[in-house]
């Protein structure tokens, strides 16, 4: 298997309090280029905290994040280290993922600018991923089949929006459209890793699949890795190659998505799967887990 592009190594995060809350408890995993990793778990299990740590928005209390062989440093007052703009994120709330006072064109342009700053004038010496992109861009003969868009217009088209929308403000778009714009912005930065922190959770069901599909297909088409965080296993299963199940700050089960779906080993994963409603016409309610049920925090072996 290829070198991982992003590794979490024994990450620990404590939130202050009496006693402190351990939000993330010794979590390690890897994301490889072209791989979609799904991270599922209930609210408060540490998923979003993990996302913020991976991007450097939050400093871990233990362990570290390694991006392309180098540790990710927490964000300070200065700009982010140039090369770490290769980690991008799409946030949960479509109402606040875009600046309401700026037209969306310039906001997507920020992503393109970040790519240009990091990859320079697109020289092949920036590593194999950059080399691939240069090769990609060098083929104008195939403008729309996987090559990376290089303008705001192209990006808007790529996420299924009208290029004329570039001059409009975020308020004139629906939640699903905003999440697609936010995706375009993040992907325009040519990330090696895209982290989606419940990017579809607040969208209605008909839009969820579209946005999830747009995100994962465009990410994978760029050869980037992706971490897709959700509490909804049924959507994650469709796009993820690998699945991580988190419970109370720990990864309790991991493995290929299909295998976990077919044969969950950990009692918590089994409960998650039972809780998914099935539209089979049988009018069965999903299994209800009694409040207060606890599960072992040890990782299940596969």
């Amino acid at each position: 298997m290829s070198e991982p592009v992003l590794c979490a190594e024994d990450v620990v995060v404590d939130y202050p309090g009496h006693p402190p809350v351990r939000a993330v408890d010794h979590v390690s995993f890897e994301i490889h280029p072209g791989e979609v990793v799904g991270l599922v778990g209930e609210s408060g299990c540490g998923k979003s905290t993990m996302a913020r740590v991976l991007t450097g928005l939050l400093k871990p209390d233990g362990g570290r994040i390694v991006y392309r062989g180098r540790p990710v440093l927490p964000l300070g007052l200065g700009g982010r280290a140039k090369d770490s703009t290769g980690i991008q994120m799409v946030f949960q709330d479509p109402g606040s993922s875009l600046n309401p006072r700026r037209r969306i064109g310039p906001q997507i342009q920020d992503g393109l600018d970040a790519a240009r700053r990091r990859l320079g004038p697109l020289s092949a010496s920036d590593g194999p991923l950059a080399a691939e992109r240069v090769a990609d861009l060098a083929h104008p003969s195939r403008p729309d089949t996987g090559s990376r868009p290089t303008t705001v217009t192209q990006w808007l088209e790529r996420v299924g929006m009208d290029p004329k929308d570039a001059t409009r403000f975020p308020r004139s778009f629906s939640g699903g459209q905003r999440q697609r714009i936010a995706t375009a912005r993040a992907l325009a930065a040519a990330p090696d890793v895209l982290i989606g922190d419940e990017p579809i959770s607040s969208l209605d069901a008909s839009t969820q699949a579209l946005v999830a599909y747009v995100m994962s297909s465009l990410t994978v088409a760029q050869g980037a890795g992706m971490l897709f965080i959700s509490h909804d296993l049924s959507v994650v299963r469709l796009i993820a190659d690998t699945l991580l199940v988190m419970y109370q700050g720990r990864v309790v089960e991991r493995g290929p998505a299909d295998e976990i779906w077919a044969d969950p080993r950990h009692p918590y994963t089994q409960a998650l799967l039972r809780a998914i409603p099935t539209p089979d016409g049988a009018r069965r309610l999903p299994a209800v887990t009694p409040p207060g049920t606890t599960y072992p925090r040890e990782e299940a072996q596969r």
Partner: protein
Amino acid sequence: MDAARPKRRLLSRVWRKIPPEIRMPVGAVAFVIALAWVVLCVVGPSIVPYDPLAQTLPRFSPPSSTSWFGTDELGRDLFSRVIAGARITISLALLLVTASMLVGSIIGVVAGFFGRWVDEVLMRVTDVVLAFPTVILAMVTAAALGASLFNAVLAALIVSWPPYARVVRSLVLSLREADFVSSGRLLGFSAVRSMRVDVLPNIAGPTLVMASLDIGNAALLLSGLSFLGLGAKPPTPEWGSMISAAVVNFDKWWLGLFPGLAILTVVISFNFLGDALRDAFDPEAGRV
């Protein structure tokens, strides 16, 4: 957020008592009056019937067809003086509000931006200033600086910036956590760029509304200082000092009434205009 909101002023409480369905018409009337005062502030001195400083008319003549507001103890036309006074009071009030907003915003942004001990120090200073009764502190400062219009503005500035600092700081703090600010940082924005592009444009609206609410109060504070002899000096046609001169001739009702009405209409119209603006910008805010 709520903790940082300054105490609701009397006139804002009055505004809440106005039935919602006529608030916008009332706001429109307030806008017209405020606009009229601003226009008079610009053109007033050139359209008045008499020179506001000329002592050529009979003394203490009551309002008449030649001298609408009457004349004062030195035979000056009161109507001309009240209109000419608009330029002094309103322009200084605007200057004061602008300066308070700038000083308060800078302090608020710095506190919210750097956080930790910088925030701690700046907010304690703000609290100390807020803890003093506004008018008393302004009086003491103006007295210490010496009586002049400029010093009155300076003294008023010292007591007027803290509410802005508090509100701007809390806005910066809440925006710093906003997702679009984080995503800007992830795209490599420096903290300064993030402030300029993502944070400041989003706090401008609420801050300007707050400033518009403050214009009437600024006019009142400046007139108050002049009334106490700590601002404009005679013969400057300033409303506060005109009322002050009228106190000794209280039987000549027109001397105090007209400058007083001028202050009243300015304070009420700008306050209601500000409230109407806030309702228009943020319809939810009025219902809490």
